[in-house]
């Protein structure tokens, strides 16, 4: 099995936890301790959702992975953790994409669906957000 520069296996296991770092405050609701579906809408230019693989990392090292995203606004509100199998349940896939280290993409979003495409993405994003666990960042 092929190993990546991060020493992780290329294939993302179903049981692996991945995370989406959140630098936009409206992607979360602190009072309800939840992530909003808008945090899981894929980028329209490539229909991918950029995530990080966080298996076998300490909390401190997980937050360290956020550095490239954090640098954009010098803010970090939290992260949305979710297991890979919950993403695959939605007929999406999680594929490794290094560098940066431990980077991966959620791929397989509906494409060429015309007007209905965004609505399909929203339905999936609702489910991913509902399954995800919000971890707040208290230090930044």
């Amino acid at each position, binding site marked *: 099995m092929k190993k990546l520069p991060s020493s992780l296996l290329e294939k993302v296991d179903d049981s692996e936890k991945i995370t989406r770092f959140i630098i*936009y405050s*409206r*992607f979360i609701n602190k009072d309800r301790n939840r992530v909003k*579906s808008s945090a899981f809408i894929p980028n329209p230019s490539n229909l991918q959702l950029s995530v990080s693989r966080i298996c076998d990392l300490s909390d401190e090292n997980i937050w360290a992975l956020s550095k490239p995203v954090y640098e954009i606004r010098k803010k970090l509100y939290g992260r949305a953790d979710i297991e890979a199998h919950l993403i695959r349940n939605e007929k999406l896939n999680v594929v490794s994409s290094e560098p940066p280290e431990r980077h991966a993409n959620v791929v397989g979003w509906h494409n060429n669906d015309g007007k209905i495409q965004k609505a399909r993405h*929203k339905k999936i994003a609702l489910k991913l957000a509902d399954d995800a666990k919000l971890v707040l960042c208290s230090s930044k």
Partner: protein
Amino acid sequence: MNLVAANNFTSFTSLPSSGAKSSEGNIVYERIMDYVEKYNQSIAISGNKRVTNDELCDVYLECKNPNWDGYNAIPVSIEICKAALKFTQALPIDIPAPEVSAEADGEISFEWYQGTKKIFSVSIGANNRLSFAGIDGDEEWYGVSTFIDQISPKVISGIFSIII
């Protein structure tokens, strides 16, 4: 829609761009809020909607530049912000204020959440297109409609199915 209010809000398009929450950003924010205040007064909207309108101004300021989410998101345009404001005015008065956010494709979303597996979200995008989806227990649905002056019954019923 009240024509005076509509004309006031048209001026929104001529506001200078600035970095959100900088001193210049604060000036822009105050000017936008002036317009929104006039807009609110002219149509006597409910408290819930006022909160949403204030939030829409914040969303625009926060997301008017590319890559606002750190993952190359598209900026929120003033046209979509204006459409979102009209959308909030068209909501039935007894609907609670939604949670407002931008999305990576530059659309603005409104989300009603009543707990796990009881969520409805609608986004407004280019050409006044509404894309919506909901989860209510094991039931899931999604769809699209066009918003002109009235919100489609499919969207309204989706909201009510979650909040009731």
